[in-house]
């Protein structure tokens, strides 16, 4: 299972890449593996606002639909539209293929997230 340096991680297996006041959000290798073959991603709209722990999008594998919860509050400023045609890209490379970009409204939430080392340990416990 791959965990990338330079990212922050949530307990729900999302990753966050912070760039200034913006955060790119995706799911981790652990999550894509658990979900299986992804066949559809229902993306939010740009300018939609979310609180931390809200369901921000739904990922559908062959077997089931799973909600993805944003670990940070803010406004969607960009969505990865490529995923509409090729949702399986998230399976192929979950860290390259971000899902949404959020303008952060509460930077202190980032402190709640895990470092790569902490996340690795967290996953080992989940096994």
């Amino acid at each position, binding site marked *: 299972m791959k965990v990338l340096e330079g990212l922050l991680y949530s307990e729900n297996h999302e990753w966050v890449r912070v760039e200034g006041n913006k955060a790119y959000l995706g799911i981790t290798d652990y999550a894509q593996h658990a979900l*299986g*073959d992804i*066949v*559809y991603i*229902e993306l939010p709209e740009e300018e939609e606002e979310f609180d931390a722990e809200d369901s921000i999008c739904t990922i559908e*594998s*062959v*077997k*089931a639909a799973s909600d993805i919860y944003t670990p940070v509050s803010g406004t969607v400023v960009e969505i990865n539209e490529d995923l509409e045609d090729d949702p399986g890209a998230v399976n192929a490379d979950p860290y390259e293929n971000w899902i949404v970009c959020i303008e952060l409204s509460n930077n202190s939430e980032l402190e709640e997230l895990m470092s790569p080392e902490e996340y690795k340990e967290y996953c080992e416990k989940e096994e």
Partner: protein
Amino acid sequence: MEGLKKTALFKCHEDQGGKIIDFQGWALPVQYEGIIPEHEAVREKAGIFDVSHMGEVEVVGEEASDFVQYLVTNDITVLEEQQVLYSFMCYEDGGVVDDLLVYKYSDKHYLLVINASNVEKDFNWIQKNGEQFDVEIKNISSEISEVALQGPMAQEILQQLTQEDLSEIKFFYFKEDIDIAGVKCIVSRTGYTGEDGFEIYTENNNITKIWEKIMDVGASKGLKPAGLGARDTLRFEATLPLYGNEISSEITPLEAGLGFFVKLNSDDFIGKEALVKQKEEGLKRKIVGFEMKKGIPRHGYEVYKGDEKIGFVTTGYFSPTLEKKIGLALIDIDQGQIGNQISIKVRNKMFDAEVISKRFYKKNYKK
């Protein structure tokens, strides 16, 4: 996964990296490599499934034929020895107890193969209704294991392990005491995928050998172990019903569009009166196919025409073979015409759908 029943093949699933889930109280693999590659293997080459959780009930006795005819909706008088028939057991009101395969050994000996989730309910039902007949009914589910070898390469793979000419076993026929890799088995040309293939039954302590030998000779031909996930997507594309989805105690075979397996002119059977009446009065709802452009339908989602709820989705998927978002839904019959525009409620949002033919995938049986 504590407390779950395990099939004799459990260790094989673990060794092959199967993702084990709780399926109706059984610890079984939902997938190994992934649902899509396993699904494709069965459509293009071959896949092997552990279906040992299925139930088997033996009916033996002077009145075995009369009893089975009374129990099921299809006409078993047309069955030859060593032939298999798909049928339903219905309640008096026409709702379905279970769907099953009837294996005929002789007029005095039948084997009924039933769904894992229904074994106890079915066995009680069969016993209760068998009281008035001269038959002996035995639940042998816990003694028998079963694998399904499915796909266009199935015969070529299995032929390497037996002297028996498998091409002589025609579609929906079986042979008993066939020697597969030195193990005595029952082999039928049946399945639940829409492809050619076999179902192989043997005693629990021999099934691992069968599985391993088939994997040994099949791997080079593209054979993959396949889990419950692919089993469901495959049967769905071939419009084969699943108990609890397309048929249930609340949905009759006629509503499910499976009247072909209900012979209303055959001798009296349980549920006949109700089904005759339902047919005479006309159906109020039926199962249709539909396609969506956006959103993926799932079992249980509500179906609407405008603001009016007209039914629910029985099964839905992003179809791996057709690469379409398709489903089956039980809806009001006057909304069932092909081309009708309907809506599916997905997580509180309405998505457009169109009624299409439910023959999603053309079955590749060897007849």
